[in-house]
């Protein structure tokens, strides 16, 4: 057995450990399935993304989120896609952004809905195939999904 396979096994185990402390979502399988549908089996690296969201959102129906990926956005090194997930929403999918050549800066701002206190996850896919990950905890005064 090559050391590469062993390392992959170790990475998978590490990812499982990282995934475990995520708060028990209503359907954790739905979250991991939604993430897998966007980034495949790639193991994300933590960091390289600035995720700006309010620590406490008064209105869960309109929560401003800014995502800025640390990338020069040149032909040689750029972000191809940004994906947003809300870990404890009834459906974790929020949005995906695919960036083309005219995009000058790997930054997008949007407004999302959050049902309750939870973690927002952001994944950025780079043109070299790597994936970055960032998370932000969010508290909500009035939930924005089910009422």
């Amino acid at each position, binding site marked *: 057995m090559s050391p590469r396979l062993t390392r992959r096994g170790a990475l998978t185990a590490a990812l499982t450990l990282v995934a475990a402390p995520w708060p028990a979502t209503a359907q954790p399988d739905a979250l991991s399935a939604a993430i897998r549908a966007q980034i495949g089996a790639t193991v994300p690296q933590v960091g390289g993304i600035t995720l700006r969201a309010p620590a406490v959102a008064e209105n869960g*129906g*309109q*929560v401003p989120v*800014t995502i800025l990926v640390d990338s020069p956005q040149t032909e040689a090194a750029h972000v191809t896609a940004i994906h*947003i*997930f*809300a870990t404890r*929403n*009834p*459906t*974790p*999918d*929020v*949005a*995906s*952004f*695919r*960036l*083309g*050549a*005219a*995009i*000058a*800066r790997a*930054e*997008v*701002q*949007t*407004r*999302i*809905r*959050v049902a309750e206190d939870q973690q927002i996850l952001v994944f950025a896919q780079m043109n070299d195939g790597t994936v970055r990950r960032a998370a932000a905890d969010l508290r909500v005064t009035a939930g*924005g*999904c*089910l*009422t």
Partner: protein
Amino acid sequence: MSGLAAPRIRIPRSVRAGEVFEVRTLIEHPMETGLRHDGSRAPPRDLLERMVVQVNGAPALDVSLRNGTAANPFHVFFLRLDRSSEISFVWTDAQGRQARASHRVTVA
């Protein structure tokens, strides 16, 4: 509802070549997930699914909007142009209805 509301877009009329400029878009839409219960009523699912921005016909930004996107989707992003360009915006909902807008940005 027969059509989609007209989008509101803030984009400069002219920029310098290579300048990074901001584009803001807002479109009124309830973004109903179909999961909500309003008393006894459950409003049916009605979601904008996609926003596509093209620069001279080449894709610049392709956004898949899903349940977690807030009502009246608002987006900000940054573009850079080498020459005067036509920027087109298309929003599409689950029924295939579309809202469109187009702006010319002059590179001085």
